[in-house]
Protein backbone atom coordinates (compact mmCIF):
# COMPACT_ATOMS: atom_id res chain seq x y z
CA UNK A 1 0.00 0.00 0.00
CA UNK A 2 3.03 2.24 0.39
CA UNK A 3 2.64 3.87 -2.99
CA UNK A 4 3.19 7.55 -3.52
CA UNK A 5 1.54 10.19 -5.62
CA UNK A 6 3.79 12.44 -7.67
CA UNK A 7 3.79 15.79 -9.36
CA UNK A 8 6.83 16.33 -11.59
CA UNK A 9 8.46 19.77 -11.47
CA UNK A 10 7.87 20.36 -15.15
CA UNK A 11 4.17 19.82 -14.67
CA UNK A 12 4.01 22.04 -11.58
CA UNK A 13 5.77 24.85 -13.42
CA UNK A 14 3.37 24.42 -16.30
CA UNK A 15 0.37 24.51 -13.95
CA UNK A 16 1.63 27.61 -12.18
CA UNK A 17 2.33 29.39 -15.45
CA UNK A 18 -1.05 28.46 -16.88
CA UNK A 19 -2.77 29.70 -13.77
CA UNK A 20 -1.05 33.09 -14.03
CA UNK A 21 -1.63 33.38 -17.77
CA UNK A 22 -5.32 32.66 -17.58
CA UNK A 23 -5.96 34.76 -14.52
CA UNK A 24 -3.78 37.47 -15.97
CA UNK A 25 -5.70 40.45 -14.64
CA UNK A 26 -5.84 38.93 -11.15
CA UNK A 27 -2.12 38.24 -11.24
CA UNK A 28 -1.46 41.80 -12.43
CA UNK A 29 -3.28 43.22 -9.41
CA UNK A 30 -1.26 40.99 -7.08
CA UNK A 31 1.96 41.99 -8.79
CA UNK A 32 1.23 45.71 -9.09
CA UNK A 33 2.13 46.59 -5.50
CA UNK A 34 5.39 44.73 -5.98
CA UNK A 35 6.15 46.62 -9.20
CA UNK A 36 5.54 49.93 -7.47
CA UNK A 37 7.55 49.11 -4.35
CA UNK A 38 10.49 47.70 -6.31
CA UNK A 39 10.48 50.61 -8.72
CA UNK A 40 10.53 53.04 -5.79
CA UNK A 41 13.41 51.15 -4.20
CA UNK A 42 15.31 51.07 -7.50
CA UNK A 43 14.57 54.73 -8.13
CA UNK A 44 16.14 55.84 -4.86
CA UNK A 45 19.08 53.47 -5.06
CA UNK A 46 19.94 54.19 -8.70
CA UNK A 47 19.47 57.90 -8.01
CA UNK A 48 22.09 57.59 -5.28
CA UNK A 49 24.37 55.61 -7.59
CA UNK A 50 24.23 58.32 -10.22
CA UNK A 51 24.83 61.04 -7.66
CA UNK A 52 27.76 59.03 -6.37
CA UNK A 53 29.15 58.85 -9.89
CA UNK A 54 28.85 62.58 -10.26
CA UNK A 55 30.50 63.18 -6.91
CA UNK A 56 33.36 60.92 -7.88
CA UNK A 57 33.63 62.83 -11.17
CA UNK A 58 34.41 65.87 -9.06
CA UNK A 59 33.32 68.66 -11.43
CA UNK A 60 32.38 71.70 -9.35
CA UNK A 61 29.40 72.41 -11.56
CA UNK A 62 28.00 68.98 -10.80
CA UNK A 63 28.74 69.33 -7.10
CA UNK A 64 26.75 72.52 -7.06
CA UNK A 65 23.90 70.84 -8.89
CA UNK A 66 23.99 67.96 -6.42
CA UNK A 67 23.71 70.31 -3.45
CA UNK A 68 20.93 72.16 -5.21
CA UNK A 69 19.12 68.86 -5.82
CA UNK A 70 19.07 68.31 -2.06
CA UNK A 71 22.00 65.94 -1.58
CA UNK A 72 23.69 66.58 1.71
CA UNK A 73 27.36 66.87 0.82
CA UNK A 74 30.00 68.71 2.69
CA UNK A 75 33.37 69.44 1.09
CA UNK A 76 35.67 66.44 1.21
CA UNK A 77 32.85 63.85 1.19
CA UNK A 78 33.66 60.87 -1.02
CA UNK A 79 30.41 58.94 -0.79
CA UNK A 80 26.73 59.67 -0.83
CA UNK A 81 24.72 57.51 1.49
CA UNK A 82 20.99 57.35 1.53
CA UNK A 83 19.51 59.50 4.27
CA UNK A 84 17.71 58.00 7.25
CA UNK A 85 14.45 59.47 5.98
CA UNK A 86 14.95 57.89 2.57
CA UNK A 87 15.67 54.49 4.10
CA UNK A 88 12.63 54.76 6.32
CA UNK A 89 10.32 55.56 3.39
CA UNK A 90 11.74 52.72 1.33
CA UNK A 91 11.29 50.35 4.26
CA UNK A 92 7.69 51.46 4.70
CA UNK A 93 6.94 51.03 1.02
CA UNK A 94 8.32 47.49 1.08
CA UNK A 95 6.30 46.75 4.20
CA UNK A 96 3.10 48.02 2.59
CA UNK A 97 3.95 45.99 -0.48
CA UNK A 98 4.33 42.74 1.42
CA UNK A 99 1.09 43.29 3.31
CA UNK A 100 -0.55 43.93 -0.05
CA UNK A 101 0.84 40.69 -1.47
CA UNK A 102 -0.32 38.65 1.53
CA UNK A 103 -3.75 40.21 1.23
CA UNK A 104 -4.03 39.56 -2.50
CA UNK A 105 -2.75 36.00 -2.18
CA UNK A 106 -5.15 35.21 0.67
CA UNK A 107 -7.97 36.47 -1.56
CA UNK A 108 -6.75 34.24 -4.32
CA UNK A 109 -6.69 31.23 -1.98
CA UNK A 110 -10.28 31.98 -0.95
CA UNK A 111 -11.34 32.31 -4.56
CA UNK A 112 -9.70 29.03 -5.41
CA UNK A 113 -10.88 26.94 -2.43
CA UNK A 114 -12.88 24.64 -4.68
CA UNK A 115 -9.99 24.17 -7.06
CA UNK A 116 -7.61 23.40 -4.19
CA UNK A 117 -10.08 21.00 -2.58
CA UNK A 118 -10.58 19.26 -5.90
CA UNK A 119 -6.85 18.89 -6.43
CA UNK A 120 -6.64 17.23 -3.03
CA UNK A 121 -9.54 14.94 -3.88
CA UNK A 122 -7.64 13.92 -6.99
CA UNK A 123 -4.69 12.94 -4.84
CA UNK A 124 -2.58 16.09 -4.46
CA UNK A 125 -0.43 16.27 -1.34
CA UNK A 126 -0.21 19.43 0.76
CA UNK A 127 3.22 20.13 -0.59
CA UNK A 128 2.01 20.07 -4.20
CA UNK A 129 -0.34 22.92 -3.35
CA UNK A 130 2.39 24.85 -1.56
CA UNK A 131 4.71 24.25 -4.50
CA UNK A 132 2.23 25.53 -7.06
CA UNK A 133 1.57 28.69 -5.04
CA UNK A 134 5.30 29.25 -4.47
CA UNK A 135 6.04 28.79 -8.16
CA UNK A 136 3.30 31.22 -9.09
CA UNK A 137 4.74 33.71 -6.61
CA UNK A 138 8.25 33.24 -8.01
CA UNK A 139 7.06 33.92 -11.53
CA UNK A 140 4.99 36.90 -10.44
CA UNK A 141 7.88 38.09 -8.29
CA UNK A 142 10.44 37.85 -11.09
CA UNK A 143 8.17 39.52 -13.63
CA UNK A 144 6.97 42.19 -11.22
CA UNK A 145 10.41 42.92 -9.80
CA UNK A 146 11.95 43.06 -13.28
CA UNK A 147 9.29 45.50 -14.43
CA UNK A 148 9.76 47.49 -11.22
CA UNK A 149 13.56 47.54 -11.50
CA UNK A 150 13.42 48.71 -15.11
CA UNK A 151 10.75 51.29 -14.37
CA UNK A 152 12.63 52.62 -11.33
CA UNK A 153 15.98 52.59 -13.14
CA UNK A 154 14.63 54.46 -16.15
CA UNK A 155 12.80 56.95 -13.94
CA UNK A 156 15.96 57.59 -11.93
CA UNK A 157 17.99 58.12 -15.09
CA UNK A 158 15.42 60.48 -16.59
CA UNK A 159 15.18 62.47 -13.37
CA UNK A 160 18.96 62.75 -13.27
CA UNK A 161 19.03 63.88 -16.91
CA UNK A 162 16.49 66.57 -16.17
CA UNK A 163 18.39 67.73 -13.10
CA UNK A 164 21.95 67.59 -14.33
CA UNK A 165 21.66 67.64 -18.10
CA UNK A 166 23.37 65.40 -20.62
CA UNK A 167 26.79 66.22 -19.24
CA UNK A 168 26.20 63.60 -16.54
CA UNK A 169 26.23 60.68 -18.96
CA UNK A 170 29.98 59.97 -18.86
CA UNK A 171 29.78 59.84 -15.07
CA UNK A 172 26.95 57.32 -14.75
CA UNK A 173 28.40 54.22 -13.05
CA UNK A 174 26.65 51.70 -15.31
CA UNK A 175 28.07 48.67 -13.55
CA UNK A 176 26.93 49.93 -10.17
CA UNK A 177 23.50 50.79 -11.59
CA UNK A 178 23.02 47.33 -13.04
CA UNK A 179 24.22 45.70 -9.82
CA UNK A 180 21.68 47.77 -7.92
CA UNK A 181 18.94 46.76 -10.34
CA UNK A 182 19.86 43.10 -10.00
CA UNK A 183 19.84 43.50 -6.23
CA UNK A 184 16.36 45.06 -6.24
CA UNK A 185 15.16 42.31 -8.57
CA UNK A 186 16.25 39.75 -6.00
CA UNK A 187 14.61 41.70 -3.16
CA UNK A 188 11.36 41.89 -5.14
CA UNK A 189 11.30 38.16 -5.84
CA UNK A 190 12.12 37.43 -2.23
CA UNK A 191 9.28 39.70 -1.05
CA UNK A 192 6.85 37.95 -3.36
CA UNK A 193 7.86 34.56 -1.93
CA UNK A 194 7.68 35.86 1.61
CA UNK A 195 4.20 37.24 0.95
CA UNK A 196 2.83 33.99 -0.47
CA UNK A 197 4.22 31.77 2.25
CA UNK A 198 1.39 32.09 4.74
CA UNK A 199 -1.42 32.01 2.12
CA UNK A 200 0.16 28.90 0.58
CA UNK A 201 0.14 27.14 3.96
CA UNK A 202 -3.51 28.14 4.43
CA UNK A 203 -4.29 26.70 1.00
CA UNK A 204 -2.44 23.47 1.65
CA UNK A 205 -4.26 22.91 4.92
CA UNK A 206 -7.64 23.20 3.23
CA UNK A 207 -9.54 19.95 3.64
CA UNK A 208 -10.52 18.10 0.50
CA UNK A 209 -14.06 17.81 1.78
CA UNK A 210 -14.39 21.58 1.23
CA UNK A 211 -14.49 20.92 -2.48
CA UNK A 212 -17.85 19.29 -1.92
CA UNK A 213 -19.34 22.43 -0.45
CA UNK A 214 -22.03 23.78 -2.67
CA UNK A 215 -22.44 27.25 -1.25
CA UNK A 216 -19.70 29.76 -2.02
Amino acid at each position, binding site marked *: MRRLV*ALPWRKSIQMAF*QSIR*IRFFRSMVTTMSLVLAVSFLTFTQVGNDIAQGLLAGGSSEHLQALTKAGFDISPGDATITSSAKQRWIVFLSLLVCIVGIINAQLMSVTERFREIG*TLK*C*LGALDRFIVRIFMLEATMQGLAGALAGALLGGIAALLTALIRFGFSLLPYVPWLQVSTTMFFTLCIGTFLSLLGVFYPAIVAARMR*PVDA*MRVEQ
Partner: protein
Amino acid sequence: MAESKQIVRVRGVTKNFDLGKIVIEVLKGIDLEIETGKYISIMGPSGSGKSTLFNMIGGLDKPTAGKVFIDEVDIAQLDAYELAWLRCRKIGYIFQTFNLIPVMTALENITLPMTFAGVSSDDATKRGMALLEQVGLTGRHGHRPSELSGGQQQRVAVARALANTPAIVLADEPTGNLDLTTGEDIINLLKELSVERGVTVISATHDYKMLNVSDQVVWIRDGRIDKIQNRDELEIRTGGLEAAA
Protein backbone atom coordinates in the same frame (compact mmCIF):
# COMPACT_ATOMS: atom_id res chain seq x y z
CA MET B 1 -13.87 -15.48 0.76
CA ALA B 2 -17.25 -13.79 0.45
CA GLU B 3 -15.96 -10.72 2.32
CA SER B 4 -13.53 -9.83 -0.45
CA LYS B 5 -16.41 -8.93 -2.72
CA GLN B 6 -17.20 -6.03 -0.47
CA ILE B 7 -15.44 -2.90 -1.59
CA VAL B 8 -16.72 -0.75 1.28
CA ARG B 9 -17.49 -1.85 4.81
CA VAL B 10 -18.77 0.58 7.40
CA ARG B 11 -18.81 -0.71 10.98
CA GLY B 12 -20.61 1.08 13.81
CA VAL B 13 -19.67 4.50 12.51
CA THR B 14 -20.65 7.53 14.51
CA LYS B 15 -19.69 11.10 13.78
CA ASN B 16 -20.04 14.05 16.10
CA PHE B 17 -19.47 17.65 15.18
CA ASP B 18 -18.22 19.71 18.07
CA LEU B 19 -19.63 23.21 17.72
CA GLY B 20 -18.11 24.52 20.92
CA LYS B 21 -21.12 24.66 23.23
CA ILE B 22 -23.02 21.79 21.69
CA VAL B 23 -21.98 18.54 20.13
CA ILE B 24 -24.12 17.43 17.24
CA GLU B 25 -24.46 13.72 16.63
CA VAL B 26 -24.72 13.48 12.89
CA LEU B 27 -24.23 9.75 12.46
CA LYS B 28 -25.51 7.53 15.24
CA GLY B 29 -24.09 4.14 14.40
CA ILE B 30 -24.07 3.10 10.77
CA ASP B 31 -23.35 -0.43 9.52
CA LEU B 32 -23.19 -0.82 5.79
CA GLU B 33 -21.63 -3.13 3.28
CA ILE B 34 -21.30 -2.31 -0.37
CA GLU B 35 -20.56 -4.96 -2.91
CA THR B 36 -18.11 -4.51 -5.73
CA GLY B 37 -19.58 -3.42 -9.02
CA LYS B 38 -22.92 -2.27 -7.63
CA TYR B 39 -24.60 1.02 -8.31
CA ILE B 40 -25.64 2.41 -4.94
CA SER B 41 -27.69 5.48 -4.18
CA ILE B 42 -27.67 7.03 -0.76
CA MET B 43 -30.93 8.89 -0.32
CA GLY B 44 -32.10 11.03 2.53
CA PRO B 45 -33.36 14.48 3.38
CA SER B 46 -30.94 17.35 4.01
CA GLY B 47 -29.40 17.15 7.43
CA SER B 48 -29.92 13.40 7.65
CA GLY B 49 -26.19 12.74 7.71
CA LYS B 50 -26.17 11.57 4.12
CA SER B 51 -23.29 13.79 3.05
CA THR B 52 -21.31 12.97 6.17
CA LEU B 53 -21.62 9.25 5.55
CA PHE B 54 -20.75 9.84 1.94
CA ASN B 55 -17.58 11.75 2.88
CA MET B 56 -16.53 8.94 5.21
CA ILE B 57 -16.87 6.37 2.47
CA GLY B 58 -14.82 8.64 0.23
CA GLY B 59 -11.98 8.90 2.72
CA LEU B 60 -12.59 12.65 2.98
CA ASP B 61 -13.51 12.60 6.64
CA LYS B 62 -12.73 10.31 9.55
CA PRO B 63 -15.36 8.83 11.87
CA THR B 64 -15.56 9.74 15.58
CA ALA B 65 -16.01 6.06 16.38
CA GLY B 66 -16.30 2.91 14.32
CA LYS B 67 -14.39 1.87 11.25
CA VAL B 68 -14.56 2.43 7.53
CA PHE B 69 -12.83 -0.13 5.32
CA ILE B 70 -12.23 0.63 1.69
CA ASP B 71 -11.05 -2.43 -0.17
CA GLU B 72 -10.29 -4.01 3.22
CA VAL B 73 -8.11 -1.10 4.33
CA ASP B 74 -9.10 0.78 7.47
CA ILE B 75 -8.92 4.42 6.39
CA ALA B 76 -8.34 5.63 9.95
CA GLN B 77 -4.95 3.88 9.86
CA LEU B 78 -3.72 5.71 6.77
CA ASP B 79 -1.33 8.64 6.89
CA ALA B 80 -1.60 11.68 4.64
CA TYR B 81 0.45 10.09 1.84
CA GLU B 82 -1.53 6.89 1.81
CA LEU B 83 -4.81 8.78 1.90
CA ALA B 84 -3.70 10.86 -1.08
CA TRP B 85 -2.77 7.66 -2.89
CA LEU B 86 -6.16 6.15 -2.06
CA ARG B 87 -7.96 9.24 -3.38
CA CYS B 88 -5.83 9.20 -6.47
CA ARG B 89 -5.99 5.54 -7.40
CA LYS B 90 -8.93 3.88 -5.69
CA ILE B 91 -11.61 6.53 -5.72
CA GLY B 92 -12.96 8.82 -8.40
CA TYR B 93 -14.96 11.84 -7.32
CA ILE B 94 -17.80 13.53 -9.13
CA PHE B 95 -19.15 16.73 -7.65
CA GLN B 96 -22.44 18.54 -7.84
CA THR B 97 -20.63 21.67 -8.98
CA PHE B 98 -18.46 19.77 -11.51
CA ASN B 99 -15.26 21.21 -9.99
CA LEU B 100 -13.15 21.13 -13.10
CA ILE B 101 -9.94 23.13 -12.78
CA PRO B 102 -10.97 26.32 -14.60
CA VAL B 103 -7.53 27.12 -16.02
CA MET B 104 -7.10 23.70 -17.62
CA THR B 105 -8.56 22.25 -20.78
CA ALA B 106 -10.89 19.25 -20.75
CA LEU B 107 -8.04 16.92 -21.61
CA GLU B 108 -5.72 18.40 -18.98
CA ASN B 109 -8.45 18.03 -16.38
CA ILE B 110 -8.77 14.35 -17.22
CA THR B 111 -5.05 13.67 -17.31
CA LEU B 112 -4.30 15.47 -14.03
CA PRO B 113 -5.09 12.47 -11.78
CA MET B 114 -2.94 10.35 -14.10
CA THR B 115 -0.06 12.78 -13.62
CA PHE B 116 -0.44 12.40 -9.86
CA ALA B 117 -0.44 8.63 -10.34
CA GLY B 118 2.85 8.83 -12.23
CA VAL B 119 1.54 7.99 -15.70
CA SER B 120 3.77 9.33 -18.48
CA SER B 121 2.36 12.27 -20.35
CA ASP B 122 2.04 10.40 -23.66
CA ASP B 123 0.11 7.54 -22.08
CA ALA B 124 -2.03 10.00 -20.14
CA THR B 125 -2.93 11.89 -23.31
CA LYS B 126 -3.81 8.68 -25.10
CA ARG B 127 -5.97 7.43 -22.25
CA GLY B 128 -7.50 10.87 -21.77
CA MET B 129 -8.56 11.04 -25.41
CA ALA B 130 -10.09 7.57 -25.17
CA LEU B 131 -12.03 8.59 -22.06
CA LEU B 132 -13.25 11.75 -23.75
CA GLU B 133 -14.50 9.66 -26.60
CA GLN B 134 -16.20 7.30 -24.19
CA VAL B 135 -18.13 10.12 -22.54
CA GLY B 136 -19.10 11.48 -25.94
CA LEU B 137 -16.89 14.55 -26.09
CA THR B 138 -14.60 13.73 -28.98
CA GLY B 139 -13.02 16.89 -30.34
CA ARG B 140 -13.64 18.97 -27.23
CA HIS B 141 -10.27 18.17 -25.64
CA GLY B 142 -8.89 21.67 -26.09
CA HIS B 143 -11.86 23.45 -24.55
CA ARG B 144 -11.73 24.97 -21.11
CA PRO B 145 -14.61 24.40 -18.65
CA SER B 146 -15.98 27.89 -19.31
CA GLU B 147 -16.42 26.91 -22.94
CA LEU B 148 -18.45 23.82 -22.11
CA SER B 149 -22.09 23.48 -21.03
CA GLY B 150 -23.01 22.11 -17.60
CA GLY B 151 -23.75 18.66 -18.97
CA GLN B 152 -20.49 18.61 -20.93
CA GLN B 153 -18.54 19.73 -17.88
CA GLN B 154 -20.06 16.91 -15.87
CA ARG B 155 -19.11 14.48 -18.63
CA VAL B 156 -15.52 15.67 -18.38
CA ALA B 157 -15.78 15.20 -14.61
CA VAL B 158 -17.02 11.65 -15.13
CA ALA B 159 -14.07 10.96 -17.42
CA ARG B 160 -11.71 12.49 -14.86
CA ALA B 161 -13.18 10.33 -12.10
CA LEU B 162 -12.42 7.26 -14.22
CA ALA B 163 -8.91 8.39 -15.15
CA ASN B 164 -7.01 6.02 -12.90
CA THR B 165 -9.52 3.16 -13.28
CA PRO B 166 -10.68 3.46 -9.67
CA ALA B 167 -12.57 0.77 -7.82
CA ILE B 168 -15.15 3.24 -6.57
CA VAL B 169 -16.72 6.31 -8.13
CA LEU B 170 -18.28 8.65 -5.60
CA ALA B 171 -20.83 11.02 -7.02
CA ASP B 172 -22.20 13.73 -4.76
CA GLU B 173 -25.50 14.89 -6.22
CA PRO B 174 -24.09 14.59 -9.73
CA THR B 175 -27.31 15.81 -11.31
CA GLY B 176 -28.01 18.57 -8.77
CA ASN B 177 -26.90 21.39 -11.06
CA LEU B 178 -28.22 19.96 -14.31
CA ASP B 179 -31.57 20.14 -16.04
CA LEU B 180 -33.77 17.07 -16.28
CA THR B 181 -32.61 15.63 -19.58
CA THR B 182 -28.94 16.40 -19.07
CA GLY B 183 -29.18 14.89 -15.60
CA GLU B 184 -30.68 11.77 -17.06
CA ASP B 185 -27.88 11.58 -19.63
CA ILE B 186 -25.29 11.72 -16.88
CA ILE B 187 -27.09 9.06 -14.85
CA ASN B 188 -27.23 6.77 -17.85
CA LEU B 189 -23.58 7.43 -18.62
CA LEU B 190 -22.62 6.54 -15.06
CA LYS B 191 -24.69 3.38 -15.19
CA GLU B 192 -23.23 2.38 -18.54
CA LEU B 193 -19.68 2.88 -17.32
CA SER B 194 -20.41 1.07 -14.10
CA VAL B 195 -21.66 -1.97 -15.99
CA GLU B 196 -18.92 -1.81 -18.60
CA ARG B 197 -16.00 -1.39 -16.22
CA GLY B 198 -17.39 -3.13 -13.16
CA VAL B 199 -16.74 -0.04 -11.10
CA THR B 200 -18.77 0.54 -7.94
CA VAL B 201 -20.75 3.76 -8.15
CA ILE B 202 -21.91 5.33 -4.91
CA SER B 203 -23.94 8.46 -5.21
CA ALA B 204 -25.60 10.70 -2.68
CA THR B 205 -28.68 12.13 -4.22
CA HIS B 206 -32.10 13.69 -4.00
CA ASP B 207 -32.84 12.76 -7.56
CA TYR B 208 -35.51 10.11 -7.95
CA LYS B 209 -34.34 9.50 -11.52
CA MET B 210 -31.33 7.90 -9.92
CA LEU B 211 -33.44 5.13 -8.37
CA ASN B 212 -34.11 3.88 -11.82
CA VAL B 213 -30.58 2.63 -12.34
CA SER B 214 -29.56 1.84 -8.78
CA ASP B 215 -28.93 -1.73 -7.74
CA GLN B 216 -29.44 -0.75 -4.16
CA VAL B 217 -30.79 2.30 -2.38
CA VAL B 218 -29.69 3.18 1.12
CA TRP B 219 -32.16 5.45 2.89
CA ILE B 220 -30.64 7.54 5.65
CA ARG B 221 -32.77 9.23 8.23
CA ASP B 222 -31.67 11.10 11.30
CA GLY B 223 -28.14 9.66 11.36
CA ARG B 224 -29.23 6.06 10.97
CA ILE B 225 -29.93 3.73 8.12
CA ASP B 226 -33.67 3.73 7.69
CA LYS B 227 -33.79 0.89 5.18
CA ILE B 228 -31.78 -0.65 2.39
CA GLN B 229 -33.75 -1.63 -0.67
CA ASN B 230 -32.69 -3.66 -3.63
CA ARG B 231 -33.93 -2.73 -7.03
CA ASP B 232 -36.65 -5.39 -7.15
CA GLU B 233 -38.12 -4.06 -3.94
CA LEU B 234 -38.05 -0.56 -5.36
CA GLU B 235 -40.13 -1.46 -8.36
CA ILE B 236 -43.09 -2.15 -6.17
CA ARG B 237 -42.85 1.13 -4.35
CA THR B 238 -42.03 3.43 -7.21
CA GLY B 239 -43.79 1.47 -9.97
CA GLY B 240 -43.41 2.72 -13.51
CA LEU B 241 -39.90 4.04 -12.99
CA GLU B 242 -38.45 0.83 -14.26
CA ALA B 243 -39.35 1.55 -17.87
CA ALA B 244 -35.94 2.79 -18.94
CA ALA B 245 -33.87 0.06 -17.31
